[in-house]
Structures are given as C-alpha cells and as structure tokens.
C-alpha cells in the first residue's frame, strides 16, 4: 500500500514538474518575443529628426561666375586679379608657367556688377618684364550665398540635403557645395557657408533646404 502511494506521488510529481517545464518554456519564448519587439520599437523611436536653420541668404545676379584666359601673355609671375575700376567686389588670383604665361585663374570673390567688368592683372614686383599681352575676360551669372547651421543632434550627409530655388530646380547639396576641409557631413552645431553658382535662371526669390522630413525656406535678398 505504501509502495503504491509512493509511486503515485512520484508520478504526480513528475507530471507536475514536466508541466512546469512546459509553462516555463512557453513563458520564456513569449518574454523573448516581447523583449525583441520592445527593443526594435525603442531603437526606432530613438532616431531624432534632423534640425537646421537657414541663417541668411542673398543672391547676386551680376556676379563674376567664370573667367577666360583670352591671351596668356608671357613674363608674368603668379599674382592677383581685380576689376579695372577696382569696384564691385571682384577679386581673383592667377598662376603662370615657366615662360610666365598665365595658365590658370581662380575667383576668390565673385563681386556684383551690371555688366561684365574688365579684369586687371596685378603683377608682383618680379614681373615688371611681362609683355603686357595677358588678357582675361569675365562672364556674369547668378550666385546664391547662404549661411546655415545644424541646430539638431543629427549628423546630416551632404548627399541627403536638397536645395530648391522658388520651389524648383531641385539640386543635391553635395553637387554645389565644396567643403574647405573635404568633409561630406554636416555635424551638429556646425555652420556652413554655401556659394552656389547657378547662371541658368534669374529672379530667384526664395531658397529652400530639405533634409529628411524637414524643410526650411528663406527669402533671398
């Protein structure tokens, strides 16, 4: 009789034990699922939106956007360029080859003019023997200047930023902006100065910036 009771208790204990293992296993799987989905949602909710501000923007519709070396001349040394009237704000630099011929020009300030200015070649003291034939001509176009600041905590890739003028002309920021430090990202707190040469359209009124779901616009002055 005692043996029968002992066996029954043993069988009951085993059944209860196995049942508890089953319940534990089910609970474990359910908890794992909940944790996985919970972590996914926390991760998704943790992604902040990009935030930025356009500080100011202006358009110069008579800016010097390109220079052409009409005559290279000879006997020059590396020097600077300016408008013949010394007004309007244009400045540039040029470099020469071994014979003193002008081989490259760089615009350092586009200026703003109603007509293309004559360009003066400013020699350094060492180029007094130039032949005086060097000639550089300027072409005018539009230049949009804008200052912008990343006011959020998100680092924004230049590839993810889009520019618009008057709601059109969608242009990828990275295609018109060249970082002076070769960076391809817009970091939190960083201010960028955009110099956007676009001679194709005149009469712009507004500049817009879109990054992710965020857009910001400003009047061009």
């Amino acid at each position, binding site marked *: 009789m005692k043996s029968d009771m002992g066996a029954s208790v043993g*069988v009951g204990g085993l059944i209860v034990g196995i049942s508890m293992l*089953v319940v534990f296993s089910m609970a474990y799987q359910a908890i794992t699922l909940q944790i996985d989905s919970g972590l996914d949602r926390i991760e998704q909710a943790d992604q902040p939106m990009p935030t930025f501000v356009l500080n100011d923007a202006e358009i110069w519709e008579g800016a010097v956007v390109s220079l052409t070396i009409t005559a290279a001349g000879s006997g020059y040394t590396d020097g600077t360029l300016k408008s013949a009237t010394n007004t309007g704000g244009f400045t540039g630099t040029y470099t020469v080859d071994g014979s003193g011929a002008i081989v490259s020009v760089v615009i350092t300030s586009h200026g703003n003019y109603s007509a293309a200015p004559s360009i003066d070649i400013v020699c350094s003291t060492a180029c007094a023997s130039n032949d005086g034939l060097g000639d550089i001509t300027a072409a005018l176009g539009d230049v949009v200047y804008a200052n912008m600041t990343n006011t959020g905590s998100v680092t924004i890739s230049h590839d993810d930023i889009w520019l618009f003028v008057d709601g059109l002309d969608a242009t990828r920021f990275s295609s018109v902006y060249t970082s002076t430090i070769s960076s391809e990202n817009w970091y939190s707190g960083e201010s960028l100065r955009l110099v956007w040469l676009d001679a194709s359209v005149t009469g712009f009124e507004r500049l817009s910036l879109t990054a992710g779901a965020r857009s910001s616009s400003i009047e061009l002055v």
Partner: protein
Amino acid sequence: MADGGASSMIMLVTALLISGSASAILIGQWGETVRVLQQQERVAGLSSEVDVNIAGDLAMVNFDSATNTMTLYFINTGEHDLSTTDYEVVVNGVTPTSKTETILPAGADWEPGLLLEVELVTAAGFTDGDDASIYFVGQSVAIDGVVEPVTAQAEVRLNVV
C-alpha cells in the same frame, strides 16, 4: 507487492510518455505561435521603416498656368525603396488628369533619400497665392513579400507663373 511495484512502474512509464508527448506537442505549437507573432511584428515594424514627405518650398509650389502643370517634390524618408508606378497625388481632393514623374538626381529606383519630381496636369487652374491641399498615397516595393502603404499630406501655396 511485486505485482504492485510492476503496475506502478508501468503507470510511471506510461505517465512519463504521455507527459513527454504532450509537452513536445505543446512546446512545438507554442513555438509555431511565437513564429507567427514574430512575422506579424515584422510586418508591423515595416510601417515605421517606410515613409515619404513633401520636399521643397511649401510656400512656393510652381504652377504653370499655360499648361495647368503643378510641380511637386516628394522625398523618400524611409529605409526601403518606394514604388514609382503605384502612387497617386490628389490636389484639393481631385485626381489630376495626368502625371509624370522623374527620380532625382537620376535612376530607376526611388531609393531612400532620393526625390521624386511629379508634374501634375490639373483640370482646374489656379491663381497666384492660392493654397492647395496635397495628398500623396503610395506604397513600398515588395519587402519580403510585403507591400507597405505610405502617405504624405500638406497644405501648400502656389506660385503661378
């Protein structure tokens, strides 16, 4: 006594077998249930990975009065490609008479971060400064066999040229 011990042993083994089988079936079924739940969670999670927004200047949306053509830009702000064929844009509750789209800067797939330029020809004209309600409804491409819908809406001011 010996008979009692033998029968108890038979009962014990039988109970173990039944309990073991029942446990295996229960755990298997529960595992299947969890897998189904995980798939449903995955589908639900897709909705937060697919998104679209109206891009550009909402206060200056171009409208060409000569051709009744409105130009809008939409940006893929999700993590998956969006369909460039299965979408519709509604202006003031009215479907345009025709629409054409271009992916910017270029390409055949509307990938995350890229723009979709949509030119809508509307039946009705607008005057400069009119406000218009834009509603975009589209969908993702198939992701693991699942297509997720996306919508975007905004009030915009038209720049009639």
